[in-house]
């Protein structure tokens, strides 16, 4: 009998059967990967397990005892510790408090702050992270926040550890640190459930795999008996298309679209200069906190720069050379930003899928030229088809979509508005393998048709295989630029390391 056994678990949302009589188990000292496309039901299964949703039916056995978690707190008490998809921490408190909240060491009822901080520091050091834990959580990047969430879950000393896409915004190095920790915990006899869209991570850390498709369990395998191709085929229900071929086109190097001249922001980013050519995909690469997001935010006017200018060619002489002070300034120049943090900067919850999808286009057209309903429906259904967005009804609130599908809607939001330069900050975060390729193909196709992109991703492999040129960042400044055949993982890593000295 495995440590955790779920059987016959179903969960329905209005219009969707998210889980259809799914069984799932994980044993002591086992790392089980839970795989499946966006919207397959992975997060829902986890939320049923941890009492966020009341399940319609089914049983959960922990250590042979039937349990019915009523709330995350209850699940925690029972010994199931969870890191949910998206960062679920409180931004207004310190890192230390986020690690310890609800479990703070106390003396006579008074929180012992010294111990809180010590404990948090110890928890973070298990992941090999050394930061000032008394600083506010918002001082740190999404990646660090994700690590804090993991540290918190691990600190609970649970029997079962559940990790829902913990690595979606982590670097290779951080992922490795996490894996080291997971292996150690496995050695201590913990059962670990691990959700990810990265295949190589499954093969490097997991022992076994469970695949879901459309709310139905496809099967359980040991990783050794499930080669990559087969795993993908099980997830998608079809074989994966060829990986798009990127030829690192040097030839496009003539027609400069956007020139960035010493754009900088005090205390955030050293002045940076580069240019983007027409029809090119420019990669931004660097470690956590190297300034990828900051560069994009300056360029898009979201966080206005305080020095430097950008100039855009081909849209008349007036107004084409300026320092964008707001997103609208940049949008007027044809520059759009698809932001990194979809929860706080991307989706408008409450608004429907279709409204979210058309927001940029409508904003560009202004308030008077309303998109007619027929035209809107057409655009929306085209996009939904193109990116295979799974949604029962486009008039439903977007928050009912699975994380990956929300991300796809946000991407479409910009594509339909046809900017000349689209800044994509981690556009494939939380996207499944099939869709990831789809999106990369889309970017490559659009680039061939003359659209330009600035692309960043925590996955170096993806940057290298998508971009024609790569700007390497380190410590909030540019440390190099690679083009053509120079664009390889080794070269990028070397550039990042060079600055190390």
């Amino acid at each position: 009998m495995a440590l955790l056994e779920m059987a016959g678990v179903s969960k329905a949302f209005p219009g969707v059967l998210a889980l259809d009589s799914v069984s799932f188990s994980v044993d002591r000292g086992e790392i089980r990967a839970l795989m499946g496309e966006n919207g397959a039901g992975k997060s829902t299964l986890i939320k049923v397990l941890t009492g966020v949703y009341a399940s319609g039916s089914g049983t959960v056995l922990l250590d042979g005892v039937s349990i019915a978690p009523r709330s995350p707190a209850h699940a925690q008490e029972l010994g199931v510790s969870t890191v949910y998809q998206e960062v679920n921490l409180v931004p207004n408190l310190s890192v230390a408090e986020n690690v310890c909240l609800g479990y703070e060491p106390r003396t006579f009822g008074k929180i012992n702050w010294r111990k809180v901080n010590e404990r948090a520091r110890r928890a973070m050091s298990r992941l090999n992270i050394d930061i000032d834990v008394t600083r506010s959580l918002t001082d740190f990047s999404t990646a660090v926040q994700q690590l804090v969430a993991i540290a918190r879950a691990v600190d609970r000393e649970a029997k079962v550890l559940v990790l829902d896409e913990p690595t979606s915004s982590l670097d290779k190095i951080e992922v490795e640190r996490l894996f080291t920790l997971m292996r150690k915990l496995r050695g201590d006899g913990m059962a670990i459930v691990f959700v990810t869209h990265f295949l190589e991570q499954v093969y490097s850390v997991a022992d076994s795999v469970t695949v879901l498709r459309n709310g139905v369990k496809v099967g359980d395998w040991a990783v050794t008996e499930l080669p990559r191709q087969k795993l993908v085929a099980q997830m998608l229900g079809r074989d994966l298309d060829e990986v798009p071929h990127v030829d690192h086109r040097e030839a496009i190097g003539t027609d400069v679209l956007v020139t960035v001249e010493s754009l900088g922001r005090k205390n955030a980013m050293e002045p940076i200069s580069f240019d983007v050519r027409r029809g090119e995909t420019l990669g931004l690469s660097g470690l956590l906190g190297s300034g990828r997001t900051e560069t994009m935010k300056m360029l898009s006017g979201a966080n206005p720069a305080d020095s430097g200018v950008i100039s855009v060619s081909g849209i008349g002489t007036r107004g084409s050379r300026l320092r964008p002070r707001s997103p609208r300034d940049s949008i007027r120049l044809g520059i759009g930003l698809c932001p990194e943090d979809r929860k706080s900067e991307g989706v408008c919850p409450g608004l429907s899928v279709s409204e979210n999808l058309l927001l940029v286009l409508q904003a560009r057209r202004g308030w008077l030229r309303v998109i007619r309903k027929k035209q809107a429906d057409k655009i929306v259904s085209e996009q939904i088809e193109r990116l295979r967005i799974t949604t029962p009804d486009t008039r439903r609130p977007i928050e009912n979509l699975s994380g990956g599908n929300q991300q796809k809607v946000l991407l479409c939001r910009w594509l339909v508005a046809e900017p000349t330069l689209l800044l994509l900050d981690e556009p494939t975060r939380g996207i499944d393998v099939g869709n990831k390729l789809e999106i990369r193909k889309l970017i490559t196709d659009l680039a061939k048709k003359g659209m330009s992109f600035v692309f960043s991703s925590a996955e170096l492999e993806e940057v290298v295989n998508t971009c024609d040129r790569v700007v390497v960042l380190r410590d909030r400044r540019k440390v190099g630029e690679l083009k053509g055949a120079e664009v390889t993982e080794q070269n990028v890593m070397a550039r990042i390391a060079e600055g190390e000295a």
Partner: protein
Amino acid sequence: MTLRAPRLHLPVLATLAVLVVLYVAASIRFENFATLRVFMNFLGDNAFLGIVAIGMTYVIITGGIDLSVGAVIGCTTICTAVLIQGQQYHPVAAFAVVIAAGTLLGATQGWLIQRFNLQPFLVTLAGLFLCRGLGLWISSESVQAKHATFQTLEKIRIPVSDGVWLPFTEIVFITVLLVGAYVLRHTRFGRTVYAIGGDEQSAHLMGLPVARTKIGVYALSGFCASLGGVVLVMYTSAGNAINGTGLELDAIAAVVIGGTLLTGGYGSVFGTFFGLLIFAVMQSAITFEGTLSSWWAKIVTGVLLLAFILMQRMLQRSR
């Protein structure tokens, strides 16, 4: 690196700075302003408002709001007076009854808000109408409340300097202030209050007792409001259902001037205390001026409020 409790946030310091500037300005403008006696008067006149504002601070940090407090005060004072005068209750018993009722009302509001995910603004607005209506129903006139115990309580006071005393009502206020600040800063309950204000859904997913804490803060606010009503009865020896009309806005203003964000997650009890003092100094200054008509007083209050808020923002931005 420090290993202490979370630091006071910048807005609190900004508020303190504004308070000092205002106090010094008023002291230069008016003789006798900067005396201990005048300062004690601020505290005495605003003790009940201060107690209410402390409960409100908790509610607002969770991202909620409690509009019922003014009406609870009115209802409490009339009930206390009627219990003592009409029903011959011993004051202490009367106090216990009304405070228990106030706390229960607060908890009920909290339960509705939490259990059914209702808007705090609306639930407590209903609480406002309910209490105001009940209070006026009981008696639409002022009722005297006289009892020997009041004199006994008046004798409890702490000497501050010669001739200046800290009276009982102010002792109550200071106690609530200190306990309120301590609980918010150094207990799990207090930290959960912040977590809920930061991101309620995350707090829930992190396994914090969100339901219990939310009901708790509204109960606390009901407790503080009814305690404030009791203090007001002691201070004025009378009860009136229209007491505390519009007081909820004064309390909210004090909390907000004190640097607490209405969106929740940030703020402190001491901030509220400073906010309250700013409010009090402003009002005394207007009284000291003497010649101001009531409408000029309103306009000046508004302009000063605007000035503080803008000043706070500037201080926060230029860090």
